[in-house]
C-alpha cells in the first residue's frame, strides 16, 4: 500500500493548452513501471495521470470516497487498482494498462506490480515497452528488487531505462545520497549491458522533477521525468535492417464480381523487421524460392514501402505456395531456420514446473509447433544473477537458460536483434494455458 497522498492541484500551463487535433501527428511511447509496495509507484503514476488531465473528476471522486470510507487521505494508488480483490487486499494483482497524452506524445503505461512473485507480470509488461521506469527509494538506496527490475528490463530488451530516485524530499534533496544511488546502479547496469540509462531525482508526492524541473534540486541539470518521456528518441529502436515478414493470413477474394480480383492473392502480416519496397527481391521460407514484391497494400491503399510495425498485404510476382507460418525475407539476409533453440525462459504457471523432457506447444511469430525441453542449463537468481547449474526445474516466476527441440523449423533471430522474431510463448497442450515465455539467445 502506498502512503496516503493528496492529489496535486496545479496543472502546468504547457499541458493546459492541449489541442485535441494535435493528437493526429503525435507518436506513441509505451513504458512499463516497476516498483514495489512502498516506493511510491502508484503515487508517481497518479501524478502523471493527474497532471496530464487523464484523471477525470468522477474517477477522483470515487477515489476520494473510497479513501474517506477507509479513513484515509485521498490515495491516488486507488486509481490504478482495478479489481475488487486488489482494493480489498491493497495489492496489485496484474498488469494494468493506463493511457495519457501530452501535446507531443500519447503514452501507454503498463503498470506492473513489483513483488517477487510477479516477475511474470513485469516480463509481460516489459515485452512491448519502449522504456521502463524503475523506482528506487532514496532513503533505502539500491535494493535487491532494484537489481531484479533492471535485470528483467534488460532481459526483455527494453531500449531505454529510467531510474527515478524517489522520495528525495525525505532525504532533504541531498545530492550525495542521489549520487550514491546513481553510482551503485550504474555499476550494476554495466554488468547487465543495459541500454540507454537515465537517472532522475524526484518526489512523486510533491511533484519535484515529475512534470516541471524542481527548485529543490538545483544541482540536477537534467530533464523532468515527463520531459524525458516526451523527448526520448525511440525512432532508431526499431530494426529497419533485417527484412522479416511472417505471413499471417492469405487473402484471396471469393465470389467477387470484379474480374480484377479473380487473380488477387495477397499475403497479409505485420512487418517484424526491415523496410520492404515494391520491386524488391524477396525469398520465401521454407521453400527458399525467390520472387519480387509487385504491390504493397496498406490499410488505406497501395504504399511504396512498409516498415515495422505496419500491417500490410504483399503481392508477389510469382505463384509460390505460401501459407500462414511462412516467412518472407531478403535472399541475402534471412533469419535462421532452426529446430534447436537456446533461450532464456520465464516460467509462468503455478500448475507445473519446467523440467527436462517437458513437452509444450511453442508459438513463435505466426507459427505454432510442438517442442520438447532438452536441457535446463541453469536457473538464474534474478536478484544476484547467480547461475544455479544444479537446478533441475523452473517453477513459477523463475528464469533459466533452456535448450528446446522444436518439431518444425522456426524462422528466428536472436531476441536482442529482433524482439518479434526472437520471442516466443509456451502453451500447455492439456490445459491450453500460457505457461512460459522465451527469448532466443542463439538460434542454431
Amino acid at each position, binding site marked *: 500500500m502506498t502512503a496516503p497522498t493528496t492529489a496535486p492541484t496545479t496543472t502546468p500551463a504547457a499541458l493546459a493548452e492541449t489541442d485535441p487535433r494535435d493528437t*493526429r501527428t503525435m507518436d506513441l511511447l509505451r513504458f512499463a513501471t516497476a516498483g514495489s509496495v512502498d516506493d511510491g509507484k502508484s503515487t508517481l503514476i497518479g501524478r502523471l495521470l493527474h497532471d496530464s488531465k487523464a484523471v477525470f473528476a468522477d474517477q477522483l471522486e470515487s477515489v476520494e470516497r473510497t479513501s474517506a470510507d477507509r479513513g484515509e487521505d485521498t490515495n491516488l494508488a486507488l486509481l490504478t487498482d482495478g*479489481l475488487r480483490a486488489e482494493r480489498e487486499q491493497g495489492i496489485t494483482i496484474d*498488469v494494468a494498462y493506463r493511457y495519457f497524452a501530452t501535446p507531443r506524445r500519447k503514452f501507454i503505461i503498463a503498470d506492473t506490480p513489483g513483488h517477487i512473485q510477479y516477475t511474470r507480470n513485469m516480463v509481460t509488461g516489459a515485452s512491448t515497452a519502449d522504456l521502463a521506469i524503475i523506482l528506487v527509494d532514496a532513503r533505502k538506496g539500491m535494493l535487491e528488487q532494484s537489481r531484479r527490475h533492471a535485470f528483467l528490463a534488460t532481459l526483455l530488451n527494453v531500449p531505454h531505462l529510467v531510474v527515478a530516485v524517489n522520495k528525495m524530499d525525505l532525504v532533504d534533496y541531498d545530492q550525495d545520497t542521489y549520487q550514491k544511488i546513481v553510482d551503485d546502479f550504474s555499476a550494476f547496469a554495466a554488468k547487465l549491458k543495459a541500454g540507454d540509462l537515465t537517472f532522475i531525482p524526484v518526489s512523486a508526492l510533491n511533484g519535484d522533477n515529475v512534470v516541471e524541473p524542481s527548485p529543490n534540486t538545483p544541482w540536477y541539470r537534467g530533464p523532468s521525468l515527463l520531459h524525458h518521456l516526451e523527448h526520448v528518441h525511440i*525512432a532508431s529502436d526499431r530494426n529497419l535492417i533485417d527484412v522479416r515478414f511472417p505471413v499471417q493470413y492469405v487473402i484471396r477474394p471469393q465470389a467477387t464480381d470484379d474480374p480484377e480480383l479473380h487473380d488477387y492473392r495477397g499475403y497479409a502480416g*505485420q512487418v517484424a523487421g526491415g523496410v520492404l519496397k515494391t520491386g524488391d527481391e524477396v525469398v520465401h521460407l521454407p521453400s527458399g524460392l525467390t520472387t519480387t514484391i509487385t504491390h504493397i*497494400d496498406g490499410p488505406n491503399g497501395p504504399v511504396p514501402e512498409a516498415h515495422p510495425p505496419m500491417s500490410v498485404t504483399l503481392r508477389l510476382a510469382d505463384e509460390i505456395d505460401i501459407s500462414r507460418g511462412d516467412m518472407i525475407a531478403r535472399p541475402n539476409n534471412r533469419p535462421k531456420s532452426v529446430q534447436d533453440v537456446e533461450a532464456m525462459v520465464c516460467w509462468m504457471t503455478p500448475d507445473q514446473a519446467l523440467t527436462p523432457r517437458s513437452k509444450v506447444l511453442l*508459438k513463435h511469430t505466426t507459427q505454432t509447433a510442438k517442442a520438447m525441453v532438452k536441457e535446463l542449463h541453469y536457473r538464474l537468481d534474478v536478484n544476484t544473477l547467480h547461475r544455479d547449474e544444479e537446478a533441475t526445474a523452473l517453477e513459477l516466476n523463475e528464469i533459466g537458460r533452456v535448450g528446446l527441440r522444436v518439431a518444425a523449423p522456426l524462422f528466428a533471430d536472436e531476441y536482442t536483434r529482433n524482439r518479434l522474431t526472437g520471442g516466443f510463448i509456451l502453451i500447455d497442450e492439456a490445459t491450453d494455458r500460457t505457461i512460459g515465455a522465451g527469448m532466443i539467445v542463439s538460434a542454431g
Partner: protein
Amino acid sequence: MTQSDYLLSQLDLLEAESIQIIREIAAEFEKPVLLFSGGKDSIVLLRLAQKAFAPAALPFPVMHVDTGHNFPEVIEFRDRTVEEFGVRLVVASVQDSIDAGRVQEETGRRASRNRLQTVTLLDAIEEHAFDAAFGGARRDEEKARAKERVVSFRDDFGQWDPKNQRPELWNLFNTRIKKGEHVRVFPLSNWTELDIWDYIRREELELPPIYFAHQRAVFERDGMLLADLPYANRGDDEPPFEATVRYRTVGDASCTGAVESSATSLDEVIDEIAATRITERGQTRADDRSSEAAMEDRKKEGYF
C-alpha cells in the same frame, strides 16, 4: 532516407496493432463473430476488420444483441451500415430470451435489460457455435477493463476469471480453447475515447445522428438525462422537458444518459470531449453507478 521517415502516427500505430489482432483471430479460430451495436466503437471496429481483409469480404458475420430498448435512429443506422459493408447480420434478441423464459424482466422503475443481455449473448454464441467474439471495449473505459487481456478467455459458462488470465507478450496471442469455450477479443484495447473520435474524423465514418446535438424530450434521474422513451419507466415525479443533447455512448436506451450539448459537427464534439472532466461511462451509464465493482461483476458473468 533517415530513420525518422519510418515513424507512424499514433492512429496508424493503433490501426496496425488492431489489424494484426483481427487477422490473428480470423486465422486461428473457426467461427469468429464481430459484436456490432451501431455505436462509435463498433463502427471503428467494423472499419478495421474491413481493412484487415480487403479486397476480400469480411470472413465472419456481425452480431447485434438487441435489448429491444433501442434508439430507432441506431437500428436504422445499423441496418444501413451492414448493407453498405456487405456483411451478414445476426440479431440476438433479449425479448426472445424473455419469451423463452431464459431470463426474467427486471421490475421497478430502474428496470433495465442491460444485465439480461449477457444471457442472450451467451446463448447466441452457443447456438451459432461462435468461438471468438470481437468486441469494441477499450481499457480506458473502466478499471476492470484496464486489466483485461486483448484475447480474453471465457469458460464453458462464458465467465471471465480476472485472477487467472493468460499473459500476453509481444504480439503473440494464445488462441487455444476447448469445445464449448470461447474468447472475447478486444482489438481496440489500447485506443482511448479521443483516439476513436480522431479516427472517425480521419476515416470520415458515419455515425448514428444521436451522437450529435439534437432536440429531445428527456427527464432527469440520478443526475443523468434519460430519453423519454416508453421503456425508460418515467415516473410522475420525473417531469419530461425538451433539451438539446447528444449521446456520448450508445447502449440500452433505458440506462444510457444524454449530455447537454450544442455540438452539431464532429469537430465540435471532439472539442467537447477533449475538454470534458468526466469519464464516458461515469457520465452516461447508469449501470456502472450501482457499485464500485459493477462492471467487474457483470464481466465475470460473461458481459461484453
